[in-house]
């Protein structure tokens, strides 16, 4: 099954490039003109168009692009004038730092909350958790971001409004500001990065946490009503041991399978949330390039995220097959 999925990966990515190429070229906007500026002479626009191959017929532009990508060249961004691969690579750590922070926070709070809610079903706590998760899934991420900015940055003055650091950030080692600051022993910078991270991470973590709580709670309830737990209770095994050893293990497999879904929501929300917090990551890169019709950058981003998506889902499938052989 996994091998079959691997075989389909290149055609899927090819189709993705074709799709995005088609979308971004439906309307003949003229990036060369935008690049050259309002008052540029026609010769200069023509030269730019030729330089970037924009004067070729569409099928030839597409073939040329696919050929370039196959050799690891994603083209040059029409606006930053740097290779797209380099731009994506430079912005990856910022988004990764956000996403990892959000996933960690969501799991650290969501799993215990889901378990406790299930164990004390229909208690006051269960109802409160339910209200929080239902709101978390229904809230527009950009609105939550603005609310947090208003409350914590503007009114309380606890966190910065925007950006990833006040200055240039620590000298890069890994590109993760928090890790780099720790590696250099620069605790002041570490605190500063954490303050900048707090709000975007919280914004992204809430919907992810809501999903985790829902699945953990349902999973625990499902296992609790299964025959083997009934049997263990009847055998007089202490409840605490049943919970820790058996219920949690089986229930968490169900939560794990949702990581793919959660990751998808997280990246989707990051696109908008990064725009609100002016966070220099992949999401704001995508929004900027789309708004500027920067073809190469859009296709590079889509290809990159598509690859990551497919790999994450594949990994989750493999992990699930290993942990729970019943599915095969």
């Amino acid at each position, binding site marked *: 099954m996994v091998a079959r999925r691997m075989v389909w990966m290149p*055609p899927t990515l090819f189709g993705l490039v074709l799709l995005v190429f088609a979308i*971004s070229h439906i309307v003949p906007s003229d990036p060369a003109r935008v690049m050259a500026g309002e008052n540029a002479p026609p010769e200069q626009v023509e030269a730019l168009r030729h330089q970037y191959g924009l004067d070729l017929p569409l099928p030839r532009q597409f073939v040329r692009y696919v050929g370039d990508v196959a050799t690891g060249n994603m083209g040059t961004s029409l606006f930053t004038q740097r290779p797209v691969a380099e731009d994506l690579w430079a912005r990856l750590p910022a988004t990764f730092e956000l996403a990892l922070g959000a996933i960690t926070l969501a799991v650290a709070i969501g799993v215990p909350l889901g378990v406790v809610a299930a164990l004390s079903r229909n208690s006051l706590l269960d109802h409160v958790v339910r209200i929080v998760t239902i709101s978390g899934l*229904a809230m*527009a991420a950009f609105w939550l971001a603005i609310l947090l900015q208003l409350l914590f940055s503007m009114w309380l003055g606890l966190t910065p409004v925007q950006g990833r650091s006040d200055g240039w950030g620590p000298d890069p080692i890994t590109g993760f500001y928090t890790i780099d600051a720790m590696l250099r022993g620069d605790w002041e910078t570490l605190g500063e990065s954490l303050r900048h991270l707090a709000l975007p991470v919280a914004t992204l973590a809430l919907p992810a946490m809501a999903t985790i709580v829902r699945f953990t709670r349902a999973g625990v*309830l499902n296992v*609790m009503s299964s025959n083997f737990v009934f049997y263990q209770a009847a055998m007089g095994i202490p409840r605490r041991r049943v919970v820790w050893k058996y219920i949690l293990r089986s229930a968490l497999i169900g939560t794990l399978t949702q990581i793919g879904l959660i990751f998808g929501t997280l990246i*989707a929300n990051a696109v908008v949330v990064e*725009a609100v917090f002016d966070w220099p990551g992949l999401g704001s890169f995508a929004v900027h390039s*789309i708004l500027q019709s920067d073809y190469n950058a859009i296709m590079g981003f889509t290809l990159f995220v598509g690859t990551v*998506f497919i790999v994450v889902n594949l990994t989750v499938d493999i992990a699930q097959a290993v942990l729970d052989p019943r599915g095969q």
Partner: protein
Amino acid sequence: MNTLRRLIRDRSALLGLIIIAALVLAAVFAYPLATFPHDVTNYDPPRRLLPPDSVYWFGTDRMGGDIYSRLLFGARLTILIAVVATSVSVLIGVPVGLVAGYYTNRVSDLLMRISDIFLAVPQIVLAIAIAQTLGPAIQNVILALSITYWPFWARLVYAETRSVKNEVFIEAAIALGASPLRVMVLHVLPSIASSVIVRTTIGMGGTILVAAALGFLGLGPPPPTPEWGRMIAESREFLPQAWWYATAPGVAILLVVMGFNLLGDGLRDVLDPRLRRDVSAR
């Protein structure tokens, strides 16, 4: 009727129904309900950015428009986008899923691979790209959402069709000489309808969220259309003073999406016993 009665007995599903009914009423009666019905197109700059009081219930915006009135007219837009975009997605996705699930051949493989391509990037990215290409207009938002959302229904219907296909009643229908089209439409479709209805209800909420995000990024219908996402985006310039500006549209989006989610969960419990939210404890 039995379904409806059981739905109403479920308190959270009832809450969802009430919220959606309120949304529909707000949209239909936007004009008589609005305190300043002309504020959708007419502005009154002298009374801009007033905090909520007994006259301007939710305050006024940067052009002096009454936020409460604009919110009501925004409900029309929200319903229009959600209903049309979701219907188009269902109309594309369900047939694709049925055909791909019913047959086992190259065509069905190809159809599912095509839907995989659409599912390989976050929906919002594709929707932003399409909306940007086509330009800011309400029909383009609807088109962008439809193109990005149909694969969800294709996937669902495909999986459900596969699991129903080998049931005895389908074999019986085929043995009696029913054509493939007849089997798909009259035998497979009714038995998978409940999960499609549940997914569609919850999908409405998702569509509203993405539509609002498009509006927020400036890709929705152009001003002065009272689009909720755009209203939130406009408020950013005037923070922290105009705290009320984003509050009303934000709460509106929250409530409406929550309404569809609650109703969807309730419908799932009533229509689809296999997927009950709470497995009853022993």
